[in-house]
């Protein structure tokens, strides 16, 4: 299985404010009664975006100036809660290709990386600069550079960080490890035979 090397993601960004944004917010469980991941994009942040009669709450994701944005900027502990891969799948199907946050919940981070979505950490003051920039001009293009670990916007840049294993996997096109895991089959069989259970 041949995967693209992901060295950077460029695009417009949208601010989804708040810390501890959990997976129930990202994709409410009632939309997970499915056997594929098709169509999940429609339900991204559903209850934050729509009222009981499906009326729009004018969430940042639905504002016209953010249509087509591919980068989400959020707070600390993004993606906490469930291990549901439906959460990063919903983001991906909606069109999101990178997430900038204070830090990430562990299982969410792993799931997103496996889908080729870079999740980078940016310090609070620097995130505030990014948010102020896109609020002043939603058309500004951000570039999340995973190789240099920088987020560039116009003539400016702020540092970002991403765990080394994820950074390597993304930039070397190994972000979905299934191919490598299959290649290890002989070593796996050897360990399985020696395991006492």
């Amino acid at each position, binding site marked *: 299985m041949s995967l693209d090397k992901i060295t950077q993601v460029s695009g417009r960004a949208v601010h989804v404010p708040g810390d*501890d944004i959990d997976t*129930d917010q990202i994709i409410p469980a*009632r939309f997970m009664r*499915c056997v594929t991941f098709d169509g999940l994009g429609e339900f991204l942040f559903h209850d934050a975006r729509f009222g*009981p009669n499906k009326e729009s709450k004018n969430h940042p994701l639905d504002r016209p100036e953010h249509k087509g944005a591919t980068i989400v900027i959020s707070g600390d502990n993004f993606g906490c809660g469930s*291990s549901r891969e439906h959460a990063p799948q919903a983001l991906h199907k909606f069109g999101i290709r990178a997430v900038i946050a204070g830090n990430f919940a562990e299982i969410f981070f792993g799931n997103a990386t496996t889908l080729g979505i870079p999740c980078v950490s940016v310090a609070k003051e620097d995130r505030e600069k990014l948010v102020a920039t896109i609020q002043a001009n939603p058309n500004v293009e951000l570039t999340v550079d995973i190789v240099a670990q920088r987020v560039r916007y116009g003539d400016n840049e702020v540092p970002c960080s991403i765990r080394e294993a994820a950074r390597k996997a993304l930039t070397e096109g190994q972000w979905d*490890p299934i191919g490598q895991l299959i290649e290890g089959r002989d*070593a*796996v069989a050897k360990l399985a035979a020696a395991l006492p259970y």
Partner: protein
Amino acid sequence: MAGNGRTLFQKVWDAHSVRTLSNGQTQLFIGLHLIHEVTSPQAFGMLRDLGLKVVYPKRTFATVDHIVPTDTRKEPFADALAQGMIDALRKACREFGITFFDTHTGQQGIVHVIGPELGLTQPGMTIACGDSHTATHGAFGAVAFGIGTSQVRDILATQTMALSPLKVRRINVDGRLSLGVYAKDVILHIIRRLGVNGGTGYAYEYGGRVFDTMGMDGRMTVCNMSIEGGARVGYVNPDATTFTYLKGKPYAPQGKDWDAAVERWKHTASDANARYDDVKSFDAGEIKPTVTWGVNPGQAIFIDETLPSPEDVPAEQQEGHADALQHMQFKAGQAIEGVKVDVCFIGSCTNGRIGDLREAARVVKGRKVANGVKALVVPGSDAVGKAAEKEGLDRIFTEAGFQWRQAGCSMCLAMNPDKLVGDQLCAATSNRNFKGRMGSPTGRTLLMSPVMVAAAAVTGQVSDARKVFGL
């Protein structure tokens, strides 16, 4: 923190490491793989697309728990989507040769309840499941954790996945728990103190006198909610209590194999001179019955405390704090005791075991659910339900006015018909109080122990169970 011995985590990790992958992660062998109907269908779909088989079908076991109705098992389910999901799992298990503890087998239940009661969960294993509360199995001295659907695929295809090792934080709880204070209060207290993000990157090793003397049900309650504190893995070193629980269970080693297993399991425990990345200590005597008041499990207070004010909260948390108060319709500085409840739910992978039901039944016996309160008791598995019925617990609950249901995840997460309506407030023994968690965007959840839910049920309001039941 000094010493050159190994923690249980390190021993189990070393024993299951196949090789290092190109990005530095470990290809980790997963000894026991548990699956359920929500996070497996797409994994089987990916397997079919890749033309792959399940490499070790006998190492994967399936159950259905999230979408099953708890009032009747009659099919077709009223929810066609749910029916589709159980059908997909049946088809996949037949196709790939996987044992499925289906609804008619008498062994169905919540995945983190049936693993241990079947003796599938054992010390020294690596255990993975597409569900974050897989940490529960760590109560047996296993390294157990939640995974996403792509990792479910990886394990089905190769019995391995790519993972980086965790750091280990030792959490000591010493002293004695007061009457009316339970395992649920211990873990809610730990999460309150260390934060919902405090454990990210860590495995939590729980120890100290409180854990030495705690039964397996209590250890499972604590390990279950490790992930709510950010820790993907949570475990208790195996000991005589662990071995006694497992002896004679259907999938536990038997005869000579049993003796050999116990010897092996004793050596799985952390060495006395193990090195920890961090250590935190708590005094059990300080822990009181705890109730969450907000929209994440860390927003919790003792039953006799008042809700924190914005001034009590660090500046960067103030907006979230205000948002939580607004959603819950509470005011800063108000008491949690006395808050009226609409629904009471005893169940879930956190507190749906026989020990939980016994203690709730003990206090509720002879009392009545308050007018206007809808109260449910949902056993965590068919086996728990049958054991409870044999002991007459079901009659104690129904005579009190609780509904006695069949096993499943029920109200915990709204993927089945058990849901909140509107802004109903639910006292629950489950593990998450996120907005919309129980099926209504304006619904409100307060997490607490089974005995505290029982107290809320009989008084119609959040109450101090110690006073209500004279504990």
